[in-house]
């Protein structure tokens, strides 16, 4: 399976799209520094939905531990970037 490594901007754009779609956020709310829990009001049940969507993007199984320390949108972008780099290798 070939996966093209996406740039951080592309990952953010995709993440913004799914956050807006899943959680009724405004696109401008989804910035790198935004805290998922306090700024974007995402709860643990939402997090499960989000991880499912990210699975589609990366085409990889995502271990829950990968997202354990994720707090901000930037952290998600980092995690996805790392996953994509792994799957390309």
């Amino acid at each position, binding site marked *: 399976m070939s996966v093209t490594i996406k740039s951080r901007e592309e990952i953010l754009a995709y993440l913004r799209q799914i956050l807006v779609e*899943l959680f*009724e956020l405004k696109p401008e709310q989804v910035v790198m520094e935004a805290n998922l829990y306090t700024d974007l009001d995402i*709860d*643990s*049940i*939402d997090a499960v*939905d989000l991880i499912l969507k990210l699975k589609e993007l990366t085409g990889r199984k995502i271990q829950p531990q990968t997202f354990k320390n994720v707090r901000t949108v930037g952290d998600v972008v980092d995690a996805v970037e790392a996953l994509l780099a792994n799957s390309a290798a």
Partner: protein
Amino acid sequence: MRNGRKINHAWRIAATGLVFVLFGLGALFISLTVFPLLRLVSWNPETARRRIQRAMQITMWSFMETMRVLGILTYRVEGVERLRIPGRLVVANHPTLIDVVMLVSLMPAVDCIVKRGLWRNPFLRWPVLWAGYLPNTEGEELVDACAATLRRGHSLLVFPEGTRTVPGEPLRMQRGAAHIALAADAEVLPVTIHCDPPTLFKGNPWYRVPERRFHLQVTVGSPVAAASFRREGEATSRAARHLTDWLRGYFDAGRRMTPEGAGASAAGNSALPEPIWMTEPAHPER
């Protein structure tokens, strides 16, 4: 007159303390006698569960009546018959420590979510197990367990705030209740509890009794299908937000009104704005 008031105040402190002790001892006593007995005489676990839930109602009703007779409180319930139809998710606001006592005293059969620590308590683990109560696990695990019991046709009592309301602060609603209702495709039955004057709220110790005997007004609203909050093709995460927003508006409206007003409005839903998705056809997806 002043003296009479003081004596009444002191009496209510003593009576409240007594009821708290009685409640603790009574719960332990019943857990060691009535519930095991009911379990023993019921061959079928489902029969035991029904009988124990009924015994739970009678116990809670006795506590409410004890408090009423002792002059601690008065209470009034509107629409109680709607609480007796099984298979509904009963959602209530949570102003006081005794909301669960009040509501369970009105329902012959209802599942409750209780502290999971009880499953490690040598005395109380059996009653909660036999009654079919649910441990307060988290996230998806809790939503799945709650939806499963609703799908089996049981009613379930949930306080969507997750904890008691802090007076004077905006309602902090969690979305778990909405997720449960959507996952089970159940009807949501909103119940407004109003306590006047406020007492036994979060952070208020039991001995700080109000200046006069308090009144609990319970108003059972009209059931709403969870599926009506889901627009076509919409993700559950969004529908859960709509349902939670609606509940927040419902309980906020109830909070702003006098007990009488809350009763009148919740019965007719007249003071509540009709959300747009309520007017669209429902799309139950599972």
